[in-house]
């Protein structure tokens, strides 16, 4: 089983996770820019985070044979913090980087005017930088939040097939399916979706435009939930090809719309086994052989 996790926050995870993910079949992933579980206090904090998504994490991932790409954005929560909002002016430069395959996570948290502005502004950036958009739907007041999200997306002029609305569930899937957007499902140990509910949705709505992710982060979450969904699909009678479509071909098709998803490209960061000279393989002999 080859797996592409289209939404996982690896900067919160350990090398043990990378090792287990690769063993489970994860060969590629996308890490969307989001918040840190606690508020940032400055634009500089975002820039350091973007550097990490564009450098350190791809290096760590490559050491375990996993291709790491990212999305860049001001997230919905921090769109409400005047200390953070000026990062919007920094985004165009980062959205031009080769490893950036979408604008995201954007969307709504509490549905404030500040969030309206950040969402519309960043959908415009997606158009200008010819990138798809990864849109987070709110955890509270979700159906109303999805409705408002889809209205802003429609108004933006970004084609629905270039937008993924994420964190869907039984209550919001029908409306999202009608919209023509890609449908993202985050499978969690306690909240959001679980693997059996995911299989029921796949049976009812089919496999088109469906993205299944672990959304694993700094909270209670499981970076192997993609594998567990694949196994649940097989147990429920789906074929290997069905699983490959949901867990590999669909995310490749969605992020491939960026024109930058070059998964075969050799990663020069690993050529000497180190990134910024700081080997992550602690305990390995630091021999500068041949150098």
């Amino acid at each position, binding site marked *: 089983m080859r797996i592409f996790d289209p939404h996982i926050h690896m900067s919160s995870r350990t090398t043990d996770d990378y090792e287990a993910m690769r063993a489970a079949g994860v060969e590629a992933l996308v890490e969307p820019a989001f918040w840190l579980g606690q508020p940032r206090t400055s634009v500089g904090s975002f*820039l350091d985070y973007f*550097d990490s998504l*564009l*450098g350190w994490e791809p290096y760590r991932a490559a050491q375990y044979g996993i291709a790491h790409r990212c999305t860049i954005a001001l997230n919905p929560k921090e769109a409400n913090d005047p200390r953070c909002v000026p990062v919007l002016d*920094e985004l165009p*430069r*980062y959205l*031009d*980087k*080769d*490893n950036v395959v979408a604008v995201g996570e954007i969307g709504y948290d509490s549905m404030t005017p500040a969030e309206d502005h950040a969402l519309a502004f960043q959908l415009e950036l997606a158009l200008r930088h010819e990138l798809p958009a990864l849109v987070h739907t709110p955890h509270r007041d979700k159906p109303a939040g999805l409705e408002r999200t889809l209205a802003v997306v429609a108004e933006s002029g970004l084609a629905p097939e270039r937008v993924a609305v994420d964190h869907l569930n039984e209550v919001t899937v029908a409306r999202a399916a009608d919209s023509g957007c890609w449908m993202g499902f985050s499978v969690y140990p306690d909240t959001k979706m679980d693997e059996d509910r995911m299989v029921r949705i796949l049976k009812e709505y089919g496999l088109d435009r469906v993205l299944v992710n672990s959304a694993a982060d700094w909270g209670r979450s499981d970076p192997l939930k993609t594998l567990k969904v694949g196994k649940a699909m097989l147990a429920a009678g789906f074929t290997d090809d069905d699983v490959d479509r949901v867990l590999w071909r669909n995310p490749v098709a969605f992020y491939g719309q960026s*024109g*930058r998803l070059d998964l075969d*490209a*050799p990663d*020069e*960061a690993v050529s*000497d086994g*180190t*990134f*910024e*000279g*700081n080997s992550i393989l602690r305990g390995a002999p630091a*021999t*500068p052989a041949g*150098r």
Partner: protein
Amino acid sequence: MLTETDLPPDARAALGAALEGDAWEREFIAARRRVGREAAETFRVLLLRGARADAATVTRLYERGDAGERRAVLLALPDLPVGDAALPLVEDALRANDTGLIEAAVGPYAGRHLDQHLWRHAVLKCVFTGVPVAAVASLAERADAELARMLADFAAERAAAGRPVPPDVPTVLALTPPAATGQEA
């Protein structure tokens, strides 16, 4: 010195087009998509040189750049009209542990502008991190007795730990003045 002939024809054409437009910085950022991984670094260096990028420009590109963009800035510095104003970028690269950045930072620009204390530490860091000292510009001219002492101490520490002494240590010691070996003249 890199020239346009180091680029494949399509990348050379892209370079000319980028320099004619007013958006060459975007081409600099997206170099890998424009000309491929192989040619990207040369393309970036030639863009900076062709645009005669000043200190404010290279500082902006470096600070908002990924490792590939930063390397290109460092490599281009000797041929840019920046005086010693880009020295903070070299010092930043020497604080990093990215061997690619360290290697790019110890070229002719550092050879000309970096003060002797920081320059000695840059050489020691090359030896420590495995960057070949062949990358260090002005090595024979600037290697002095204090650098020899630092390298000798480093070699002693390695020997005490039972670890190998990098072959570049004797290479550099051979360039330092005889007095630097600690023997009375």
